[in-house]
């Protein structure tokens, strides 16, 4: 195989490995808030790896440009999704796993859902 084919295989494998880790994380984590970490983070590098691999496979500038644009859009939108799910869960009172960590948000919302 040519060098760029090897690189494609390597990038896609790394990407898929991170996606697998992210799915395992979603299964293993104790509550919604920690699952968001696993889904939103380990998944990012997975998507970046696979997209870079695809861009390299086609090898022309336009495909590479499209992949870079896709990665940029993904990096802009994925944290917003994670943040919105987390916030909606907190506002609707989804229980967190019992832990000794602090909760500085407790009692900070007033009756109209405004945060002080």
């Amino acid at each position, binding site marked *: 195989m040519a060098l760029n084919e090897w690189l494609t295989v390597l990038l896609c494998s790394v990407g898929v490995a991170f996606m697998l880790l*992210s799915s395992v994380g979603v299964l293993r984590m104790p509550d919604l808030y920690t699952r968001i970490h696993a889904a939103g983070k380990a998944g990012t590098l997975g998507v970046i790896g696979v997209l870079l691999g695809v861009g390299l496979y086609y090898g022309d500038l336009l495909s590479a440009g499209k992949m870079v644009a896709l990665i940029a859009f993904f990096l802009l939108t*994925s944290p917003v999704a994670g943040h919105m799910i987390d916030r909606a869960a907190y506002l609707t009172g989804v229980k967190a796993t019992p*832990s000794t*960590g602090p909760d500085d948000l407790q009692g*900070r919302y007033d009756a109209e859902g405004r945060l002080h």
Partner: protein
Amino acid sequence: MLALNVVLAIMWMTLQRSFTLADFVVGFGLGLGVIMLTQRVLREQIADTAVLRQPGAQQGYPQRAILWLRFIGFALWSIIKANWEVAKIVVRPRLNINPGIIAIPLDVKSEIGITVLANLITLTPGTVSLDVSSYKDTIYVHCIDIQDADAIRDDIKQNFERRVMELFP
């Protein structure tokens, strides 16, 4: 707005891989639709950046370009680190993590600055931004594993907020 519309039309033609007049018209029409939908937010953003561009508020273009490149490099490196950290937590044989929510006081003032900072926090090791207080002076962050809350607070203030404030005050 017109310049943005033309850029959107050219992007459409590039992605279609065909540069005919018809493609330009279709791209221009679609771009017009997008701008119509986002007009209100766009106008606020333009007003916001006009405030940031007041004389003396910022350095010249070359310095800003270098700052941007450094910021993008730093963000990408942080994302790779975040993935690695979370992956390490996932494969731990025993999940002895200590999640919680901590409040971090904000020094960055502009809306775009807070948005960039919140996104950066969500993209980086073990932290997801949950909400910003209505006076925009505190951001609440969920951490997957708190060993030392003050260390996390310092890290976000020293590393992330400082770099964001270099670009958006």
